[in-house]
């Protein structure tokens, strides 16, 4: 059984993205508060609280709790922040997979793997490029083996 965890690079990328986004929004709100209405100060406060919540609770919890494992017979995916979710999928029911590789993913760690079976899906979030390649090559082998078995049958 191989265990995988979401990439730390992805965590840093998300931190950077959230900080830049909230700074831009705060700047826009400050501009609005000075020239338009006082209500924008409250909006700004809300954005700051939300940003801290995301940065201090949601992101670290997600990255510390998420774990993926690939074994001979099944795929297991542990995720969740407020609701913990442990998913099991038999390898025999996997029909296809989609690897989503974003630009500069080696640096950002923003790689995703969507595993499709009949009537359901499983997503491995924020994998490092190496992990993604390892899992996809394994799944590819499994699918080819199944196809060969079906053909002989």
């Amino acid at each position, binding site marked *: 059984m191989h265990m995988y965890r979401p990439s730390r690079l992805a965590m840093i990328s998300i931190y950077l993205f959230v900080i830049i986004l909230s700074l831009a929004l705060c700047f826009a709100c400050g501009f609005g508060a000075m020239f338009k209405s006082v209500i924008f100060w409250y909006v700004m406060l809300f954005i700051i609280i939300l940003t801290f919540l995301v940065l201090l609770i949601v992101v670290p919890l997600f990255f510390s709790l998420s774990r993926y494992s690939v074994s001979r017979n099944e795929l297991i995916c542990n995720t969740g922040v*407020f609701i913990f979710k*442990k998913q*099991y999928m038999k390898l025999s029911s996997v*029909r296809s997979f989609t690897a989503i590789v974003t630009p500069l993913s080696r640096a950002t760690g923003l790689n995703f793997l969507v595993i499709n*079976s*009949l*009537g*359901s899906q499983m997503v491995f979030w924020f994998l490092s490029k190496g992990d993604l390649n390892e899992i996809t090559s394994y799944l590819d082998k499994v699918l080819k083996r199944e196809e060969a078995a079906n053909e002989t049958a």
Partner: protein
Amino acid sequence: MKQHKAIRRIREFFRHRQHPVKIVGYTSKTLWLLLIPLVKYLVALRFDIRSWLVTNWVDILAISAIFAFAWLRWVFIYFEIDEKSITAHSGFFGLAATKLCFSSVTTVSVHQGSLQRLFGAATLYIDTNAKSVSKCDIILVLPKKRAEHILALVSDENERAVKYTVESKKRSQLAFSLFFSSTLSGVIIFAGLMFEASRIVDRNIEIRLLNTAAGEISKYTRSIPYVIVVTALIIIGGWLLSFFANLMRYWHFSVTRHGRRLIVRSGIWTVRHDVMHRDRIIYYDMTRSLLMKIFKICTVNVSCTGYGKRRSEIPTIAPIATDKEIDKTLSILIPSLTCPKAMLTTGKRELWRFICIPVFISLFVPVLRQVFVFIFPRWVDEINIISFIASVPCVWLVIVKAVAAFNTGVGFNESCCVFDYCRFYGFHRVVVNREKITRVAILQTWAQQKAGYCSIQICTENEKHKKHMIKHLPVDAAMSILRSNGLAV
């Protein structure tokens, strides 16, 4: 001789084409092109005949183009049949060819709408388990006789086997439609109709229609506020619509087991004839509301690729019957799916877990009422009535969830498993072949984790991503059952 040859060729040409009524169908999608000459016509409204003529030729050209395009599509879409397969050429210029072997077909249906009946046409749908396409594999509009002939060919209706037919009773269908028609579904149908109408005509017309009806009624009921009359009108109208839709859909409903096939016939307005492959039925779902549960009656739906997937269709094989009748029907129609006993159930201990959220929602209604009274003090009467109306479904939900606490569970036997669960206001008993389960998930909130409870989410082979959620089961027991049945590690 030459004449005979020409006639034979023409016949041959028509034999492999769809019904000519399909040309009209193909025009409808491109009718928006008529807007171009219409706009031109508006510009030319200065009553200058010369300019009118100048603009009119565009109209004629556009309309001819629409019909020529539709005719071309009709000519290029054709099908071929041999002993074991059907090939349908579709797409522009018939470039896409879909070939299906009869042995891989899961469902084949012939549906004839009232308009099609006038022209003797019918729509043939053929579906397989090729999951790459969510739409139908083959759709053809054909003369009724030819469609039925292909249906017989595909479904091998000449097979020698004993036929078992189950027909639903008309009285019980009427009672079912009368008591269990859903206002919500009626309102959705009504809203859909209004939306489609507003796309064609104008939104003001539907507002005027609703206002006129409400105005006429409020003449006789002056003491009742206008808003309430409109709400009541929508609710009653929605219910009536749902009632008639149910009646039209399930009148003359019959299911026949013939060899490896299930043949379903139903409907007055749209006559439906569906043939399913029995071995390819993934699961059956006994669905009922609380009222139906009290009266011990239910509806049985099945999940089989292609059956009941079109708009406003329900994949039912028993629209309404008592529990005893349903047991008999299922043992006749789908004997391979035997219902196991529930091994893990919820009860008194989990009662609060089931009802706590609905209780909070129903307590939220009076709070919201107070807030609205504070903001709009002039509208107290209306707010009182609306909050009363809103509290009824909330209280009903509390009752439903309380009953659900005693009707939730999971069970397995050698070949099948059963899930009893409640989703919103509906109770479900799903019996599925174990091999068809594709994904199992254990969900836990923080509170559930502390108390040692969980919810199980189960996905089966299906055309759509459909989840069955069994809530508030003890986590250790649930895990051990799943492990012992090879569904978790």
